[in-house]
């Protein structure tokens, strides 16, 4: 993640910073609440994203970045949950590959949470932060909007 020069023409006011920062806080809270059911994270962040569609570009940009980062973690978590359920109730066996996946998923979840907290704090101060992968992805989406 990198702090970059803001691509927005006007600096965000305090209210905007708070809203944009809340996008990340929301996704973080959703991870904690929805760990057994990863789709809850995505839905919660999605609701926040759609609720801010008519907001300023700064708020929308950060809500979009939060949504993308959630979608990636959702993919990782949903695979882990379904794999786990198929071991408990289905034909699959408990293997080293599954345990390794589970640990990797936890590591990525932790990394994502740290990045999210860092970004939320910075954005709350009005500093524009672009996450690895999700920053360029958000730019790509916004370039199409223009």
């Amino acid at each position: 993640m990198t702090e970059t020069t803001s691509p927005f023409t006007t600096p965000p006011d305090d209210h905007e910073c708070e809203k944009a920062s809340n996008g990340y806080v929301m996704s973080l809270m959703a991870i904690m609440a929805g760990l057994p059911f990863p789709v809850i994270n995505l839905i919660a962040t999605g609701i926040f994203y759609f609720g801010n569609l008519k907001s300023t570009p700064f708020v929308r940009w950060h809500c979009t970045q939060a949504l993308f980062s959630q979608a990636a973690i959702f993919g990782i978590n949903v695979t882990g949950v379904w794999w786990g359920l198929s071991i408990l109730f289905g034909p699959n066996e408990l293997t080293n590959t599954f345990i390794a996946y589970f640990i990797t998923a936890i590591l990525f979840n932790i990394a994502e949470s740290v990045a999210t907290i860092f970004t939320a704090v910075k954005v709350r101060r009005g500093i524009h932060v672009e996450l690895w992968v999700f920053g360029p992805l958000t730019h790509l989406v916004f370039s199409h909007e223009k």
Partner: protein
Amino acid sequence: MKSKLFYQILVLALGFILVWQGLSRFDFVGYFDLKRFSREQEEKIGELLYKILKKTSQEPENENVMLLLDSLKIKICLAAEIDPESIKIRVIEDETVNAFALPGRQIVFFTGLISASDHPEEVAGVMAHELAHITNNHVSKKIMKDAGFAYIASAGGGQVSSEILKNLLHQLSSTAFDRVQESEADKVATQTLMKSGINPEYFASFLEKLSKDEDQIGVNLEWISTHPESKKRADDVRDLAVGFKANRLPVVSDSLWNGVKADFKSQE
């Protein structure tokens, strides 16, 4: 911008795969002995289930039956490359034609199933089938499906209520495994029978015979009602056994088999 994005996605995906595959090299299952832990819990639950079963039923006093089943167990286990000592054969005095696998590597036979068999090879076929459910972990899977979180709680050191255990026993003794598991057990059983020199035709004809008998005489044929599509299963067993040359020697001595049958007749 697009090339930067592509590069970052590639690095992230590769990073994930590398960490995952790197961690996969560790033997977590072996190091923490996770399978032994679940085996111990299964044995505990298996003992509890058998105790419940024994409360409502009796074990037969017929020594020949145990001798017959033990002889078959040794033959089949050796063919399946399993330590015969690890498998417990239980017999229950009940005229229902039924046999089922219980957790803790137990196979329960109702005397009704042995009475309904015309040859010891038919009993061997059922035993090989139930053994396959054990070796392929179908029993553990079924427990997880039927008892679910109650079982997980017991594995965590908690207690499972007797009501849950009774339900579980009912599920294990009177409902089938899923279709894939049943056909997998048939396949493994047929291979085991062939390895031990027993003609799988006996197993196939036992399946067919019981499905016919059910219509004709209306006896309680639990094993068939819990194992549907018997005709198709019999055909599948025959297909697997095409070209098999059976051992001409009987699987157990005629005198033992006749002794078992005579004991049942005298009890009637």
